[in-house]
């Protein structure tokens, strides 16, 4: 598994007090791991700091609320990791 996933899984485990072994790339942060919106902001802060990026949470939330994107696209961890990698790549470009 990618180092990005390992970092994100570690952050989620520590921030939301979820056993690391329960966190897989297929995990849905909300539905499977039970992370609420407040805890997700704590996780976003840790991810922002760890990767030097700014997760566009407001944009994602708006897209989900307006039906333009399914929540899985952002909150299933393998998808979240892909987006983090894209943001890091865009920053380095």
């Amino acid at each position, binding site marked *: 598994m990618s180092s990005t996933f390992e970092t994100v899984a570690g952050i989620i485990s520590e921030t939301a007090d979820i056993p690391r072994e329960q966190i897989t790339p297929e995990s849905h942060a909300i539905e499977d791991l039970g992370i609420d919106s*407040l805890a997700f*902001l*704590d996780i*976003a*802060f840790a991810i*922002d*700091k760890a990767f030097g990026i*700014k*997760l*566009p*949470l*407001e*944009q994602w*939330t708006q897209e989900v609320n307006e039906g333009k994107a399914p929540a899985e696209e952002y909150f299933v961890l393998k998808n979240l990791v892909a987006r983090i990698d894209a943001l890091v790549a865009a920053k380095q470009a």
Partner: protein
Amino acid sequence: MRLEYFEMIDRVTSLDRETKRIEVSSVVPQESPVFEGHFPGHPLVPGVLLTETMAQASGYLVLGLMGFTHMPFLMGVDKARFRTFVGPGTVLAVTAQLEHEGSGYAVTKARITAEGKPICDAELRFRIMPFPEGMDGLMRAQARRIGLLEESV
């Protein structure tokens, strides 16, 4: 300060947009109903109100930097430390520094000193949301009261 009304900030001393830092001042009142219980005969400002003071300074910082477009709501307090007692008449110097501006949230570090001596410090997190109806005007009025709007926004 009017502790019982949660008016914790007396005056904004400076708001530096470049360094994203605010300095405010407040004077602890000589008398307050709060002191009747905390503690009888031994008046001390409760730590929770010192935390609120740091949160309000941080909140005005975020409001000022964002041009009063959204409202910051306190959602987390980390690493809070209370280093000494604060009694009536104490002149507080409060500073708050924006540490991180996320999408829909902000993180600050705030501290309070009195006569240069550290009183307390904490890392604070805020959820940034649209103003609830009617709160915009209320916050602008409070900002004018403490000298934020005419000086900085």
